[in-house]
C-alpha cells in the first residue's frame, strides 16, 4: 500500500481515544472548576477548599510516602532476588521467572485477601508468634501502615523484578569477571559495576511500583482500613459516597499530578544515568 496512507490504520484507535479517553479527562478538569456539587456555579471554590486545608497536604504526603516506602522495600528484597536470578543456572532461572510472573496473573484482590489471612487477628503471623511465646496478645497488623507496606511489597514485587531482570540479563558477564579478576570484592563489583549498569531497569521498576502502590485503592482500603487515609480513598468517598463530584475531580487531578511528577522526575534521572553510562 501507499506508505503515505499507512498511518490511517491508527485512526480508529485515535478516534476511540479522543472520545472515551481525552474527552472524559478534559471534562474532569472542567468539573473541578465548579463550586457546588450540582455542577452549576463555575468557580475555584473546591480548589481553594482543598488546597487551603492542611489535612489535604497530610494526605498527599502520606500517599507519596507510602509509595516511597513500598519502593524501598521492593528494592531491598527484590534486587537481591534479581542478582540470584542472574547467577542461577538456566533451569533454576525458569523456575524463578515462573514464581515471579505468576503473581502478576493473580488478581490484585486475591493477593490483598491473602494478606488479610496472613496478618489478621487469627492469622498466620499472630498464631506463630503466640505459639512460640513471643507475644501473649495478638498484634494488630491490619489497619497499620507497616502491615500495608509489607502487603504492597509482595503485591507490587513483579513490577520491580521484571524490568530489573530484563536489563540485568543483557549485561555482559565479562564485566563482572573483569571486575573480579582485577581484585574487586563481590560487594565492590555490585556497587561499582552491576548497580550502575542496571540503573535503567531499577528506575523503571521503581517507577512502576511507585505509580501502582500510591493508587492501589483495594489494598489501601482493605488492609489499611478507614483510619489510614490516602488520596484514592478520598476520591472514592467524595465521588461515590458524598457525591461531591467537583471535589472528587480536584482530588483525582491532585493524585494524577503528584504521581506523574514523581514518575517523570524518576524517568528523567533514569535517562540521565543511562546517558552517562553510554558516554
Amino acid at each position, binding site marked *: 500500500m501507499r506508505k503515505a496512507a499507512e498511518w490511517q490504520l491508527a485512526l480508529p484507535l485515535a478516534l476511540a481515544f479522543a472520545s472515551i479517553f481525552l474527552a472524559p479527562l478534559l471534562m474532569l478538569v472542567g468539573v473541578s472548576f465548579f463550586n457546588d456539587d450540582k455542577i452549576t456555579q463555575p468557580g475555584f471554590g473546591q480548589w481553594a477548599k482543598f488546597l487551603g486545608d492542611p489535612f489535604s497536604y497530610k494526605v498527599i504526603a502520606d500517599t507519596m510516602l507510602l509509595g516511597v516506602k513500598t519502593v524501598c522495600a521492593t528494592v531491598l*528484597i527484590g534486587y537481591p532476588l534479581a542478582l540470584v536470578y542472574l547467577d542461577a543456572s538456566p533451569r533454576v532461572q525458569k523456575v524463578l521467572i515462573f514464581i515471579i510472573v505468576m503473581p502478576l496473573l493473580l488478581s490484585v484482590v486475591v493477593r490483598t485477601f491473602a494478606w488479610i489471612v496472613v496478618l489478621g487477628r487469627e492469622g498466620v503471623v499472630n498464631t506463630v508468634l503466640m505459639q512460640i511465646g513471643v507475644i501473649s496478645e495478638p498484634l494488630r497488623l491490619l489497619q497499620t501502615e507497616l502491615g500495608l507496606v509489607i502487603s504492597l511489597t509482595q503485591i507490587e514485587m513483579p513490577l520491580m523484578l521484571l524490568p530489573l531482570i530484563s536489563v540485568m540479563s543483557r549485561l555482559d558477564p565479562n564485566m563482572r569477571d573483569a571486575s573480579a579478576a582485577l581484585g574487586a570484592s563481590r560487594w565492590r563489583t*555490585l556497587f561499582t559495576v552491576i548497580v550502575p549498569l542496571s540503573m535503567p531497569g531499577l528506575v523503571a521498576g521503581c517507577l512502576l511500583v511507585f*505509580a501502582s502502590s500510591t493508587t492501589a485503592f483495594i489494598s489501601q482500603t482493605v488492609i489499611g482500613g478507614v483510619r489510614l487515609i490516602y488520596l484514592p480513598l478520598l476520591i472514592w468517598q467524595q465521588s461515590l459516597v458524598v457525591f461531591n463530584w467537583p471535589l472528587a475531580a480536584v482530588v483525582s487531578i491532585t493524585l494524577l499530578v503528584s504521581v506523574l511528577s514523581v514518575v517523570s522526575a524518576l524517568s528523567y534521572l533514569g535517562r540521565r544515568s543511562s546517558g552517562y553510562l553510554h558516554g
Partner: protein
Amino acid sequence: MGRRRSFADISYGLVIGGLAVLALFIIVAPVVIVLMTSFTEGRSLKFPPTGFSLQWYEALFDPSKSRQIHRAVSNSLEVAAYSTVFGVLLGSLAALGLSRSRSKLARAADSLFMSPLVLPGLTFGLAALMYFTLIGLRPSIHLIIAGHMIVTVPFILRTTTASLSQLDPALLDSSLSLGASWLYTLRRVTLPLIAPGIFAGAFLAFMASIDNVPVSLFLSTARTDMLPIRMWGMMESTLDPRIAAVSGVLIAAAFLLMLIMEWTVGLTRRMRD
C-alpha cells in the same frame, strides 16, 4: 588480603542470598496459605485451618447461594472478552499504521495510546463516570467494555509493535515486488509472523481486564457487578470464607494459564525482553 576478600564473599552470599530467600518467601507464602485456608472445615479463616473440607467450594459453586458471585464472574468474562476483541482489532491496526512511521505525529499518537499505563486508573475511572453521566448515557456493560478497552489496549500495542519491529522489511518488499497486493501481503506474510505478539498482548489485556479495579469501581452498578468489586465487597463487610474458595479457583486458573502460555507463546521470554 585474600582472607579479607573471602570474608567479603561470605558476607555477600549471606546478605544477598538471605534477602533473596526472604523475597521468594514473601512472594510464595501468602498464596500457599490462602490455598490451604480455602479447604478449612471451620467457619472462619483461621490459620492453621481446622480439618479438611470442600464446603466453601461447594457453597461457591451452588447456583442459588452464590448467584451474585456467578453473575459477577460472567460479567467480568464478558467484559474481558469484548474489550480484548475490540482492543486487538483497533490496537493491531494502530500498531501496523504507526510502527514504520517516524513522524512526530505518529510518536505523539503512540505515547497517547500508551498513556493509560502510567495514568492513575482511578483518575480515568472517575473521569469516565462523569463524562458518561453528564452526556446522558445510562450505566451499562457497554460503557465498562469501552473503559476496559482503553486501559488494556496498551498491552496489545506494545507486544504487537515489538513483533513488527523484528519483522524483516525485506520479506514485505519481496512480497510486494512479486506482485502481491498490500492486503494479500498483510494476510499471508505480516499477520502470521506477528500473530504470537498479538496473541501474547491479547492475553495480557484479557487478564488486565479481569483484574481491573479502578474503571469497574466507577462504571459498574449493582446490575453490572464485576468480580473484583464483588470480592472487595466480600472482604469489606463480614469476611466471607467463600472468598478463599474464589481465590483458590483464581490461583488454579492463573497457574494453568501460565503453563499454557509458556508452552504456546513463551510468555516469560516475551515479558523479559
